[in-house]
């Protein structure tokens, strides 16, 4: 008997295993470590006080953190889990984050606390509960509680969650949106007691007149919670005082009315920052008036079909934004620095491509100056 088929298939098999090992293990291509920002407009010195972070894959199961500044780049070994999209912080505290990778967080010198509403609700699971986990920083002791929340039904979904401490109490807030168009979004605020049980303290209707109200992120500042309500007719800023359980709404200056979607909302000591329809607005915290004299818009808008705001930060009267522009198959990342009061573009630059190396997007990190 001639073993032609055995010989053929064995040869092909040996060849394919050899090739696979050859290209996947022996003859690897080193990852491209050339990271440099490409100037498009203005002076790069405007990026003096910011740094960018990104995670790249350098080998099977090996990742490095990239810290990019205006004229330097550093690499540090890190952990990353591609299928969950989580990095070091979560992977070093697996017991706490398990099942709630994108939980809202609160951290102080004594403990870290996270809270997340049932992530499978309402499609994968119809149980309305929130999981709260608290880890003591000294003893590393973990407390985890599942608390069911009455009054939330499966025709609602959770839009926003937030965790904040005030006056030694921790508050968990969430925005619930109904799937039926006649009911607007509702904000629910709970106080977390020391045994990790919840006590409902507030229930605020967020709907504006009109067909549909969109809400921004829920941001916290001291003893206050802020949220932007947006409909086709108007845009309002709601301020909720956690001390008095009272809330007020402020009318915002004329923003774009075409687009009711708030792309980004942040707050710092003096200003609110928000992005509507690709335009950035800086709003004074005391007067609720627009600070920037000129609309802050990147100059590359027309080159793309769609632009999203990835991250934003501010320092020394300068507002920094990372944008991602999409056109057909292609997407590019940019950093833009605006002057907060004049609204002038101080700098515009293209961030290095992460194609075939990056596993996470760019974000701002703190630098010590």
């Amino acid at each position, binding site marked *: 008997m001639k073993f032609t088929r055995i010989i053929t*298939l064995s040869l092909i098999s040996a060849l394919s295993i050899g090739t*696979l090992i050859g290209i*996947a293990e022996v003859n690897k291509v080193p990852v491209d470590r050339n990271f440099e920002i490409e100037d498009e407009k203005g002076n790069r010195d405007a990026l003096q006080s910011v740094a960018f972070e990104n995670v790249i894959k350098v080998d099977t199961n090996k990742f490095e953190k990239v810290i990019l500044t205006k004229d330097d780049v550093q690499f540090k070994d890190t952990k990353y889990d*591609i299928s969950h999209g989580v990095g070091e912080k979560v992977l070093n505290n697996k017991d706490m984050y398990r099942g709630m990778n994108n939980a809202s967080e609160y951290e102080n010198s004594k403990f870290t606390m996270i809270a997340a509403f049932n992530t499978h609700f309402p499609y994968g699971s119809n149980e309305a509960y929130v999981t709260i986990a608290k880890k003591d920083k000294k003893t590393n002791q973990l407390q985890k509680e599942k608390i069911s929340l009455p009054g939330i039904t499966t025709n609602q979904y959770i839009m926003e969650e937030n965790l904040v401490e005030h006056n030694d109490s921790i508050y968990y807030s969430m925005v619930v949106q109904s799937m039926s168009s006649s009911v607007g979004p509702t904000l629910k605020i709970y106080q977390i007691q020391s045994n990790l049980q919840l006590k409902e303290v507030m229930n605020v209707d967020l709907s504006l007149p009109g067909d549909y109200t969109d809400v921004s992120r829920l941001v916290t500042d001291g003893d206050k919670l802020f949220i932007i309500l947006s409909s086709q007719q108007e845009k309002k800023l709601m301020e909720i005082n956690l001390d008095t359980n009272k809330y007020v709404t402020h009318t915002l200056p004329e923003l774009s009315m075409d687009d009711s979607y708030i792309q980004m909302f942040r707050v710092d000591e003096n200003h609110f920052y928000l992005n509507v329809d690709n335009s950035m607005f800086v709003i004074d915290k005391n007067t609720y008036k627009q600070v920037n004299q000129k609309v802050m818009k990147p100059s590359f808008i027309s080159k793309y079909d769609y632009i999203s705001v990835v991250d934003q930060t501010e320092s020394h009267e300068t507002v920094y934004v990372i944008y991602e522009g999409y056109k057909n198959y292609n997407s*590019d990342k940019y950093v833009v620095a605006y002057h907060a009061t004049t609204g002038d573009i101080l700098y515009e630059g293209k961030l290095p491509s992460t194609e075939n190396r990056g596993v996470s997007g760019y974000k701002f990190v703190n630098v010590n100056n």
Partner: protein
Amino acid sequence: MKFLTFVEIDLRKIFPFLLGMYAIAIAGFQGFFVKLASNLNGQIVQGAAESGTTLEEYLKTIDKISLASIIDSNILPLVVQIFVGLGLILLGFYLWYKEWFGASKRIYTLLSIKGSRFRIFTSKLVVFLLIFVTYYGIVLLNLFISSFLVKFILPEQIIASDLVQNYILHSQFLPFVIPVSGGSLLFNLAFLIMMFSILSVFVLWDRSKRIWGMIGGFIYMGSTVVVFFYLNTLDLYTSEISIVNWAFTLCVLTISTAFSYYLLKKKVSI
């Protein structure tokens, strides 16, 4: 009969079918790939026209194109490979059942040959592994052909370097089709042996106990699938799930092989 003769006879039976499956894998992959790459070329030309510059200038402003940017954004080429892979698993059933059906019922000859009956199992396992390792080679071949074809479809200066190596390391979807590292190659081989053992339990149980064996086989096969999917829906991180999968594979592999051995030795009779 010698062991190699067992293997050769099995291979001869399935060879034409195998060649057909590999041909479908190559034709399907390349067909979709060429289509996707041509679409991309159209978009590049259109992008250049809209930007108002020459194509040369425009190409300098956009990212280099790698296999990941073509295949990972539309995984139809890989879907074809997955379907071919599923078809090849069915060959595992055929390898066993072909002996029982037909006028001659060759199983009687096989079972009455002197020497260990377990040879029948191991020879078919070797065939099953050869089928799949060759299939990995076919998928790799497809990647090499694509990395060659793409040069004729897209402008040269926009194509990234080391296409195949980079795709193996960075693709999100390729690991669902073939192993992409030494470690995952070992796991895949163990997983294939496990799959073949489970199929063998089903076939041998069915052939030795008829109706009840068939029901038992279905329950056994179904429960391993259910347990496997259940384990993979747990909230486990990648490093943990790979340990769990190894443990599951080795456990089921041992139980199924032992059970097949027992059924083949004791239960399947002439």
